[in-house]
């Protein structure tokens, strides 16, 4: 199966060499599936990316989920009990972040460039809302990243890029069961001597399908009917119980 996908992919790449914008010519990227489908039995998945690079250089691949506003809260002790005492809100926090590199982080590109392209968890920049000191922002930012990593929504370390030939590569990203849904972007960068020479953007959709998707849509698009349906289901169950089991 894998060999077949590979073959089809190579053929497609070979047949359409001029189909890409000039600055993207150096890279071609393809997904084994361009959607991750969350069904009722969904328990995580694997996202496989194939690609071809037509020149020498190092690669960095970044997978980002849709951006969200996130509140980070800090617990403190009051009257002996632990409760949230402080918070900070951040903007443009990717709901999911994973990345892969073909070499060591600092050898691929200088810190400035990594920050610009958002390569590596430390180079992610999200904006703190409200007035805070630099030190506070740094502490909350680190806590945010730590929390996201703990939940498996931010990468702990880069995935490996496997080269099947000098040009042809493959990366596997593991998708956790509670992956945030929405439109994802996958950015692939080619670096030569610390300069970015090529980039390529690919879209990915992660969403519920089938029964789960219908339930979700019903609940959000027609919430009143959904609530009534939930009540009717419960009333029916309660009535059945009474019918069959209570015979005193």
């Amino acid at each position, binding site marked *: 199966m894998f060999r077949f996908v590979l073959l089809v992919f190579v053929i497609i790449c070979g047949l359409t060499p001029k189909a890409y914008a000039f600055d993207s010519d150096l890279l071609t990227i393809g997904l084994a599936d361009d959607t991750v489908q969350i069904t009722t039995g969904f328990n995580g998945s694997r996202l496989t990316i194939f690609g071809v690079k037509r020149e020498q250089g190092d690669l960095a691949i970044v997978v980002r989920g849709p951006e*969200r506003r996130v509140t980070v809260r800090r617990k403190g002790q009051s009257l002996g009990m632990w409760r949230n005492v402080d918070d900070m*809100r951040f903007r443009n926090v990717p709901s999911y972040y994973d990345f892969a590199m073909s070499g060591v982080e600092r050898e691929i590109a200088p810190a400035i460039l990594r920050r610009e392209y958002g390569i590596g968890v430390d180079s992610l920049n999200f904006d703190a809302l409200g007035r805070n000191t630099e030190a506070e922002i740094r502490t909350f930012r680190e806590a945010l990243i730590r929390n996201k990593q703990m939940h498996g929504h931010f990468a702990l370390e880069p995935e490996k890029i496997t080269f099947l030939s000098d040009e042809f590569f493959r990366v596997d990203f593991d998708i956790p*069961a509670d992956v945030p849904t929405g439109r994802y972007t996958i950015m692939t960068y080619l670096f030569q001597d610390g300069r970015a020479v090529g980039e390529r953007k690919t879209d990915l959709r992660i969403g519920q399908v089938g029964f789960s998707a219908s339930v979700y849509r019903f609940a959000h698009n027609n919430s009143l009917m959904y609530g009534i349906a939930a009540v009717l289901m419960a009333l029916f*169950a309660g009535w059945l119980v009474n019918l069959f089991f209570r015979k005193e």
Partner: protein
Amino acid sequence: MQIYLPIAEMTVPAESILLLGTFVGFLSGLFGVGGGFLTTPFLIFMGLPPGIAVGTQSNQLVAASLSGVLAHFKKGNVDFKLGGVMLVGSLLGSVIGVSLFKLLKHMGQIEFVIPLLYVFLLGSMGLMMFYESLSSMLKKKDVEGDESSKLMHHKFFTSLPYKMRFPRSKLYVSALVPGAIGFVGGLLVSIMGIGGGFLLVPAMIYILGMPTILVAGTSLFQIMITTIFATIMQAVTNHTVDLVLAAMLIFGGVVGAQFGVRFSRKLKGSYARFLLASMLLIVCFKLAGDLFIAPTELYSTEVN
């Protein structure tokens, strides 16, 4: 088997949810309580957001209370007029409760307030029941409801305005009293995800002075309508009712309740209350411990 919850947007082990539902159903069959006081904390322990736990639990309570109401209705043990007056209070209570829940969530205090309320409620009810059941076990007799308590004849309750006649319960009391009891019930449903039977029943006996035989059916009737209303309101305003989760809890509950009812016939009243009291206290201690023990990670995140 892992199952994806479409509204909670997370995967949970289906066996654990079914087991929880069955266990809680068993308890409700055994003790005649709704069991929300166990379901909500356990769902939160399992990592479900408190909002989903409370919203979905209110849906489960609809099923649990209807089968109880029907049984009492057949025996004519429901005072609909009194239940109706309580409902006015409880619907108001659940509207305020849902908004209060939203406000506390916004302030980042909901994960603190819910366990704290549980500790207070479970602790006080558990201790009272523990003491009562232990003393009746030691005296080797079953004392059902102490009649010496005449709170309803207290000057405060008799001087309230809007007096109404409730012929079924043979009562002539201010409508404010059942209304206020209902109000507290409504708050409990929408903030803590519990029907509150274990609080309503004593209140109706001791404060209202209702005949004991009508109390269970009337409180269940009131809880059923309140949870129906709360379910619809949670679904509309907060999108926190997960049908898949609710279906699993209800199914487990149905199975468990049958075992519970059968088992209850072999268990003496005071022993059953002693067991229930111990369980309330265990959950109470666990929750209290979590409030006082320093968490390993001080920071938490919430997506807005």
